[in-house]
């Protein structure tokens, strides 16, 4: 048990100097050093700073003759404070404390409106789709700061500080999953230590320079290219020209994110379809729609390593892509050879079925020769394909378009000759396709001239399901012939026929190319009939 007597030290200890008034404006602290003289040594000493604006602090000194005290000052007004020095010694026999001296001093330091400053933050970058506490480190924050966090997309939400010391603010922050890659701007506005500014009259709030914090967006997951339901991303595939190739894509989007744009980049020449209208006799080439995550195309020409790329972007502007390659096979290197007849002939067609008999001017040496109906003779022109490689697994399809066909009062519309296809060369028919235009000569006719110009297209169609024919090339051909008769024109023997010019092919076989209209596909909008 310590028994001591308390001795007044007022007479022994005396403050004789107040010095080193140190004013830290950024933290609104006033540090006062006090020097005192006491007759005995003491173990503990200290000083109190008392300021009228109320803030105070104590700091223990550690010497025999001085102590230091720190006070927060919340008033800008000039004021007089005082320092109270104390010292104590504790022994078994005596205790003494309190100098009982009060030294007053004038405090003339003025508080400024502090400008806060952000030194750093933790974390130093934001992750989209996360919630966390943002620690803001710096100075001049006061204790009632306002924090402002802004980003261009408005993806960041926050509330006001959970805690606020002059050098650190903690703010709850949430970053939406859709946040793009962007910079977040953070500022701190100080409002002093009591929320009304640093100055006694409030002063002005001041805002720190902003700092920028990057957002790390959620990356777009790698998509997959599906073909026939299988993931073919990065795995080369093989198809034939004209084969229906339906792509779609697959991707697992993070929660809260959607694809805002997507599309395909496909090498090679391709179309979206080749549509034959069997009722109205038209053929059109469709342009593929390749802007969605699904597209159907038909390659028109063979090619190796044709790249197919699907790419998309999410609503956080993050994008990704998938790529694969296709090897497209098909006929190449061949031709279609025409074999023309040299001129016009006159033929009597025997009746067959409901087909009436009659006299005809024929290109070729050919006629309806029997009942049941049969055609015998040499056709006007025949076409045969040869030399193609890569044509297995498909068939040749011929399309005959009449460009002009004028005879008597008939001036035909250009269009398809009869029907599509003109003929298919596969196991059904032989490799040859023919035509022998013939026109009736009435007994009342005296001179009939026919001018005919047409184009025979050869196409190739894969046996694959839902395939379309693709063009290989075409040959234009034609003839002009005149039949005349002076009398008894019901008799074929009274007619004569001559060719005007050389009938047969005009020019050579033209290979189809991607640069041709409709990528080389034959198109038409009607059947060729007399106007």
């Amino acid at each position: 048990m310590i028994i001591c007597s308390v001795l007044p030290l007022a007479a022994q200890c005396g403050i004789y100097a107040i010095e080193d008034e140190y004013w830290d404006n950024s933290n609104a602290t006033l540090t006062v050093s006090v020097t005192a003289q006491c007759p005995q040594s003491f173990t503990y000493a200290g000083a109190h700073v008392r300021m009228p604006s109320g803030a105070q602090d104590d700091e223990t000194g550690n010497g025999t003759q001085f102590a230091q005290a720190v006070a927060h000052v919340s008033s800008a007004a000039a004021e007089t404070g005082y320092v109270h020095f104390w010292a104590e010694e504790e022994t078994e026999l005596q205790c003494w404390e309190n100098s009982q001296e009060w030294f007053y001093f004038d405090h003339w330091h003025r508080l400024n409106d502090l400008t806060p400053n952000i030194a750093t933050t933790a974390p130093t970058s934001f992750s989209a789709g996360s919630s966390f506490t943002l620690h803001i480190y710096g100075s001049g924050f006061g204790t009632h700061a306002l924090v402002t966090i802004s980003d261009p997309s408005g993806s960041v939400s926050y509330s006001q500080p959970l805690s606020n010391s002059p050098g650190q603010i903690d703010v709850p922050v949430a970053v939406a999953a859709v946040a793009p890659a962007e910079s977040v701007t953070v500022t701190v506005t100080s409002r002093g230590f009591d929320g009304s500014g640093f100055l006694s009259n409030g002063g002005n709030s001041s805002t720190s320079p902003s700092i920028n914090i990057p957002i790390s967006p959620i990356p777009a997951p790698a998509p997959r290219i599906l073909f026939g339901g299988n993931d073919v991303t990065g795995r080369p595939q093989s198809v034939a020209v004209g084969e229906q190739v339906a792509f779609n894509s697959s991707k697992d989007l993070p929660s809260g994110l959607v694809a805002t744009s997507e599309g395909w980049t496909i090498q090679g020449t391709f179309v979206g379809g080749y549509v034959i209208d069997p009722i109205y006799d038209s053929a059109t080439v469709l342009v593929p729609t390749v802007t969605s995550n699904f597209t159907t195309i038909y390659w028109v020409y063979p090619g190796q390593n044709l790249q197919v790329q699907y790419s998309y972007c999410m609503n956080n502007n993050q994008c990704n892509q998938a790529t694969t390659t296709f090897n497209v096979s098909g006929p190449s290197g061949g031709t279609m050879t025409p074999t023309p007849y040299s001129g016009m002939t006159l033929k009597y067609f025997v009746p067959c079925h409901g087909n009436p008999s009659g006299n005809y001017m024929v290109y070729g040496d050919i006629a309806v020769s029997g009942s049941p109906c049969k055609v015998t003779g040499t056709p006007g022109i025949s076409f045969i394909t040869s030399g193609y490689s890569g044509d297995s697994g498909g068939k040749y399809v011929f399309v005959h378009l009449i460009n002009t066909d004028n005879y008597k009062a008939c001036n035909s519309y250009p269009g398809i000759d009869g029907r599509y296809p003109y003929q298919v060369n596969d196991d059904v028919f032989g490799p040859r396709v023919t035509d022998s235009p013939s026109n009736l000569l009435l007994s009342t006719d005296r001179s009939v001239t026919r001018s005919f110009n047409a184009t025979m297209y050869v196409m190739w169609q894969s046996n694959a399901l839902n395939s379309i024919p693709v063009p290989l090339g075409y040959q234009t051909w034609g003839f002009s012939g005149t039949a005349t008769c002076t009398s008894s024109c019901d008799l074929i023997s009274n007619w004569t026929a001559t060719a005007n010019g050389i009938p047969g092919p005009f020019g050579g076989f033209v290979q189809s190319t991607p640069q041709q209209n409709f990528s080389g596909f034959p198109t038409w909008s009607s059947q060729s009939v007399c106007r």
Partner: protein
Amino acid sequence: MKKVISSLLITVALFATLKQAEASQPQAMFTIAIDGPTQVAPGTPVKIVVRLKNTSDRELSVDTFYVEGLDTFFIYDVRDQAGKPVPKRKRAEAGGLRTRTLKAGETLEEGILISREFQMNQPGQYSIQLFRSVPEDASNQAIASNKLVVTVTP
């Protein structure tokens, strides 16, 4: 005139043959099936699809004289709902002869614009049936297709 009478006689004889063929169908070398719309609006072209299948073990000649989309080597029997033959339009005077052979077991498929030949623009029901024979059939048997009924709506 003689030729016209000759044609008429042949046609009458052929239809008699056709009726006989319908009554008793011996083993045919081929079959004919037709398909098409069962209902069309007035003025809509009527196009049928003909499938001629070679059911024999030899090649058949299936030549044609195409006249504006019509294979004239078929016989067309088109009747209105009263059973009367539908009037024909004037056939174009020009066409193209084509020689074709159909291999055993294969099928020839053709689209035929039937309304180019027959006046089917009035509302009502029309029945369509096709007949054909081939040179390889020594019996000259005309094979009949199924009947297709097309309704032209009012």
